[in-house]
């Protein structure tokens, strides 16, 4: 799609866009999960894209543009953007028990089926998962985003966020429990858990 109201891209812009455009869906996903809403995600993505454009001269042709751009995006979020827009939003949250969904699935009778996780997941759409992640406090949502969406290791997340690896580990472990509980709450609120449970053959 051509951007209306914008001049045709010159050769350097074309080179940049050819690398940027294939990365934009995933970058949008990361920006959306990090910020928690579409308006802030657009601001972050624009900031990161403009920074990348201005720094395009330092990008080594043939190296991994996507990794380079995602580092700019997450650095921008953690070093500037988050401090300005989200300072002081940490909230205390009661911990969630281990195996939260496993236990809830057992109560629903799903553990009698051949694929209890599949049964549960079939009731959870993208919107429910997005809402559950967005409900997490910043520090848990951020590590979950970098681990689950960007597939970064504990060490890579620690480097991006400038925090100890042990902190990443504990936030991610606790964040996973909180996410499971939030997911269950969202699913209950939206009535996604109603309906027949499949029997042992997997048929409803």
């Amino acid at each position: 799609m051509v951007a209306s109201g914008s001049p045709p891209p010159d050769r350097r812009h074309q080179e940049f866009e050819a690398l940027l455009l294939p990365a934009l869906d995933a970058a949008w996903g990361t920006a959306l999960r990090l910020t928690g809403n579409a308006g802030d995600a657009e601001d972050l993505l624009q900031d990161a894209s403009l920074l990348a454009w201005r720094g395009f001269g330092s990008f080594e042709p043939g190296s991994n543009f996507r990794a380079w751009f995602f580092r700019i995006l997450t650095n921008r979020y953690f070093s500037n953007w988050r401090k300005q827009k989200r300072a002081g939003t940490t909230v205390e949250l009661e911990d969630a028990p281990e195996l939260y969904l496993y236990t809830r699935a057992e109560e629903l009778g799903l553990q009698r089926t051949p694929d209890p996780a599949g049964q549960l997941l079939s009731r959870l759409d993208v919107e429910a998962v997005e809402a559950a992640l967005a409900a997490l406090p910043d520090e848990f949502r951020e590590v979950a985003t970098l681990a689950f969406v960007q597939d970064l290791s504990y060490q890579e997340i620690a480097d991006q966020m400038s925090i100890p690896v042990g902190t990443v580990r504990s936030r991610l472990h606790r964040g996973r429990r909180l996410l499971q509980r939030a997911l269950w709450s969202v699913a209950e609120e939206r009535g996604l858990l109603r309906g027949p449970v499949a029997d042992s053959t997997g048929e409803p």
Partner: protein
Amino acid sequence: MPLPDRLDCEETFLRLDDYLDRELDAAERRLVEEHLATCDVCTAEYRFEAAVLEGLRERLRRVRLPAEVRVRLLSRLRNAAP
């Protein structure tokens, strides 16, 4: 702390998150897998957690940049000086 020769259910469970996140070293990973191979209860828990995690990952990655956001982004980029 030296590793035990084998893990019981509790010791396995304590390592389950790191195992799911592919953060255990080879020796601990092997111990977890040896326990899972002999314990139906832990295997059921592990399979459930792994499947849920994969389902969440897949759903969180299923996203497309809205067309209007793309248009605004490209417009700003093309008007930006190098």
